[in-house]
C-alpha cells in the first residue's frame, strides 16, 4: 500500500533535493517508512506521513551536503531521470530557502493542502501559505 504514493514522494524529492539525489532519498524514505509502518494505524494519513519522512530525509541530505561543502551546481555529467538539466527549473527550486522549497514542492508536486503542509513543516497554516507564496514569488523573480 506504501508504493501507491511512490509518485508523490519521488516528485517531492526531485523538487526538494534535485533529480540526481532524489532516488537515494526515496530509498531512505521508504525504508524508514517500512520500519515504522506497523506503528501507523490503517486509517492514518499515509501520504502525509510519508511526505513528512521524505521532508526529513531531504533536510538530512542538505545538512550532509553542507558539511561536505560540495558545490550545488548541476554538473553536465548529471543525466539522471528528471527534466533535462539546464532548464533551470530544478536549480531554481533547489535555490529557494528550505522552508519555501519544501512548501512549494508539497503544494505543487504533491497537491497538498496548506493545512497538511503546515503539519509537515511544523508551522502554522498561515506560515505555510506564506512560504508557498514567497517561494512562488522568488521563482518568478529568478526565472523572469
Amino acid at each position, binding site marked *: 500500500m506504501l508504493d501507491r504514493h511512490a509518485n508523490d514522494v519521488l516528485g517531492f524529492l526531485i523538487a526538494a533535493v534535485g533529480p540526481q539525489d532524489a532516488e537515494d532519498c526515496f530509498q531512505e524514505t*521508504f525504508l524508514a517508512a517500512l520500519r515504522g509502518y506497523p506503528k501507523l494505524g490503517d486509517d492514518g494519513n499515509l501520504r502525509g506521513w510519508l511526505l513528512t519522512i521524505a521532508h526529513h530525509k531531504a533536510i538530512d541530505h542538505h545538512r550532509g551536503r553542507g558539511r561536505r561543502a560540495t558545490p550545488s551546481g548541476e554538473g553536465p555529467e548529471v543525466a539522471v531521470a528528471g527534466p533535462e538539466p539546464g532548464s533551470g527549473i530544478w536549480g531554481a*527550486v533547489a535555490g529557494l530557502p528550505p522552508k519555501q522549497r519544501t512548501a512549494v514542492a508539497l503544494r*505543487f508536486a504533491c497537491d497538498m493542502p496548506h493545512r497538511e503542509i503546515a503539519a509537515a513543516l511544523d508551522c502554522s497554516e498561515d506560515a505555510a501559505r506564506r512560504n508557498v507564496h514567497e517561494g512562488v514569488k522568488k521563482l518568478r523573480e529568478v*526565472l523572469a
Partner: protein
Amino acid sequence: MNRKTDSVLRELVDGPPEDAVVAARGRFARVADEAGLLDVAYAREDSPFGPILLAATGLGLVMVSLPAQEPDTALRRLSSEVSPRVIEAPARLDNVRRELDLYFSGRLREFDLPLDWQLTAGFRRRVLRATARIPYGETRSYTEMARRAGNQRAQRAAGSALGSNPIPIVVPCHRVLRSGGALGGYGGGPAMKEALLELEGSA
C-alpha cells in the same frame, strides 16, 4: 503569473517521469528485501483469462487473485491480514509465474510450489489441503471434500471453504463439482472454471 513560472509549476504538478518512478520502485523492492523488510511480495501477471495478482511470503505462495476479483481488494487484504509490508517485487514470484505459464499452456500437470496457508484456518483449511491433493484431470464432489475434511455432512461449509480459497488454480478448487456433475460456483466465474476443466481434459 508569467509563462515561464507557469511552466515551472506545471512540471512540478506533472510529477516525475514514469520511468524514474518505475526504476525507483524496482530498486526499492531489492533494497527492502535485503533489509529483511519485505514481508509480502506481489506481482501482476497476464493469464489467458485476464490479469491476475500473485503474492508470496517467505513461506510460499499466499494468494492468487483472479481476473474477476479486484486487485486493490486483494492488496488491502494482504496488508491487513498478513503484513502491511506489501511490495511489488515480481522477481520473488518468478517460479510461480513460470509454473503458471506452463500450466496454462498444458505443459504442467502438477505444481511444485511451497504454499503459505495462513489466510485460511480450521475446517476450511482442511478442505483446501484435501483439494490440493486432487490429481490433474480428475474431479470430486463437495460431499467428498467435506468427508475428507472430517465432516461428511458439512457439504455447505465445504462449498464455502472452496469459495474462500485464497490460492485458486494452484489449489485446484475448480476440480470440485456438485454431486451429479453440475459445475457449481467459482471465484473466477463459471466460464473460467469450465475452461480450466477443459484444459485438463475433464470437462
